[in-house]
């Protein structure tokens, strides 16, 4: 008579790893329910976004103020021309637009990254 070898005893437990420990829940619920904790996170996001926005705006204002200032303070720049077009026209009529676009694109990417980081943090259980 052949007996099947009895398998080794295995301890069967329910794994609690990955389960939500009692008392902890994602911050997104705190946000949703407008608790004090959610408020702290919201403030952080608001401040980060606003800082980025104000950075872009101040770069714009600086750039705009610098354009005429350089043209007026360094009169030789006004005399220079490319393909017969005087430099003030090239700067104010052409160069401004790609610069604005590059700045806008950079902002959009940065702000998407901020939001992605924020989402990662608040969705973590």
């Amino acid at each position, binding site marked *: 008579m052949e007996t099947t070898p009895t398998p080794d005893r295995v301890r069967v437990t329910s794994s609690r790893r990955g389960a939500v420990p009692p008392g902890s829940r994602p911050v997104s619920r705190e*946000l949703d329910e407008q608790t004090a904790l959610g408020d702290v996170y919201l403030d952080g996001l608001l401040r980060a976004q606003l800082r980025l926005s104000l950075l872009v705006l101040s770069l714009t204002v600086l750039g705009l103020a610098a354009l005429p200032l350089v043209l007026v303070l360094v009169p030789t720049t006004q005399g220079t021309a490319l393909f017969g077009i005087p430099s003030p026209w090239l700067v*104010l009529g052409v160069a401004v637009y790609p610069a*604005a676009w590059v700045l806008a694109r950079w902002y959009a990417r940065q702000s998407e990254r901020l939001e992605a980081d924020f989402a990662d943090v608040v969705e973590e259980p």
Partner: protein
Amino acid sequence: MSQPLSLVAVVLVCLTTLAVGGLGLRLSRRTSDFYVAGRTVSPRLNASAIGGEYLSAASFLGVAGLVYGSGVDMLWLPIGYTLGYLVLLVMVAAPMRRSGAYTLPDFAEARLGSRAIRLVSSVLVVAIGWLYLVPQFQGAGLTLTLVTGAPQWVGGLVVMVVIAAAVGAGGMRSITFVQAVQYWVKLTALAVPAFVLLFLWFRAGHPAPVVPPEWHSPLRTGAPDDHTLYRTASTVLALSLGTMGLPHVLVRYYTNPDGVGARRTTVTVIALLGTFYLLPPVYAALGRVVYPTLPDGVRQDSIVLRIPGELAGGLGADLLTAMLAGGAFAAFLSTASGLAMSVTGVIDQEVLRPRLARLTGGDAPAVRGFRFAAVAAVVLPYLLSRAIEPLGLATTVGLAFAVAAATFAPLIILGVWWRRLSTTGALAGVLTGGTATVAALGTTMLRGDLGGWVGALLANPALWAVPLAAGTAVAVSLLTPGRVPATTTRTMVRLHTPERIALARSRVRD
């Protein structure tokens, strides 16, 4: 000057607009059709639509006219028009999309929970919309007079009737695709003649434009009390803040799928506008080649349409003029219909529908009120356009931007970023900014530019009126902490939390 080809182009553009309006009647029965489109419109298509609606008579004719007249300093106008979208991008694009608001009054009411602020916003939408419609009618009159010799009032009347019909039919606005095509139509209609004319000019031995030296120098001070620097700075501020407060701009943001989409759309809009604005200076310079000084009885704004006749001859000139005239009409019609749609919506919703319901006990079909509102929305600005004829196109558009910058811009920016904004504060800010700007601009329009500092401050109020409005809103809000809406935090969570985070309570379903 009578040009049958140009007339054909104008008629064709008008008929297409009407046909599209009729098509819209079949395709879009409910506002929800517009909402549903929001799920599928890609940033690139939506950006073309925004560009198509935004580039108006002022951009198509006015900018070239001003640059022709005053030189390099006028390039600040298209810069301001474009920067408006940069400011919009960094301050409000994504939060506006997430707010779920469809119009500015909707946003104001949702954020501040007050009927009063809704009412004030509605009045402002109508006022700004009307101010912006005026130059569209003027541009149409000017174009039609030039190409057919018809009296000045005819062109405006044609545009008025066409947009009243198109808006009354219920279409136009909801068809993103058509507005998107409009951008490319306008760009082509301005770019192709520009290249042909440049070629002709080059072949003619590229004579230099005849200009006084100050035409080339930026921020020159002509008279000692001209205050060019102040005026320029104030104008650029008005244009770059005013864009977000224009009634036909925000609505387009609703078709973005989400906040990220709204930002990407805006980035593309900046590229499209930048491309378009490379062209008006070309016309201004060519204008200086053919007309060293403005001939008697010729309006600066018509310079774009006159160049082909001077540089080319015969059928070629007629074709180019026809192309420009058609493009110009496309500009008037697309901007005007977008504006008329916004104004009509407000008049219908706030004024006519409640009255009509009370009078008839809810029996009248809603669409009749809407059509009546569409007529009301365009007749008044048309009459106004006859009254303030002499102002240039870009100047009149500037008035609308100035009012929007001193009212809606502080309201929206504070509403999006500042939690302590109270209902009373917002109301006080908007009323202060609006009253100050309207009083200043009204004085300038009635009495003419007074000259000196007084004249400069009154003609370009943005640089003091915007801080005044924002300051009032902040000060009054701090004094009335009890009037901060209880829903503020929930609204802020909704405005700023990315869509991928699931929010059961704070998110609006749309």
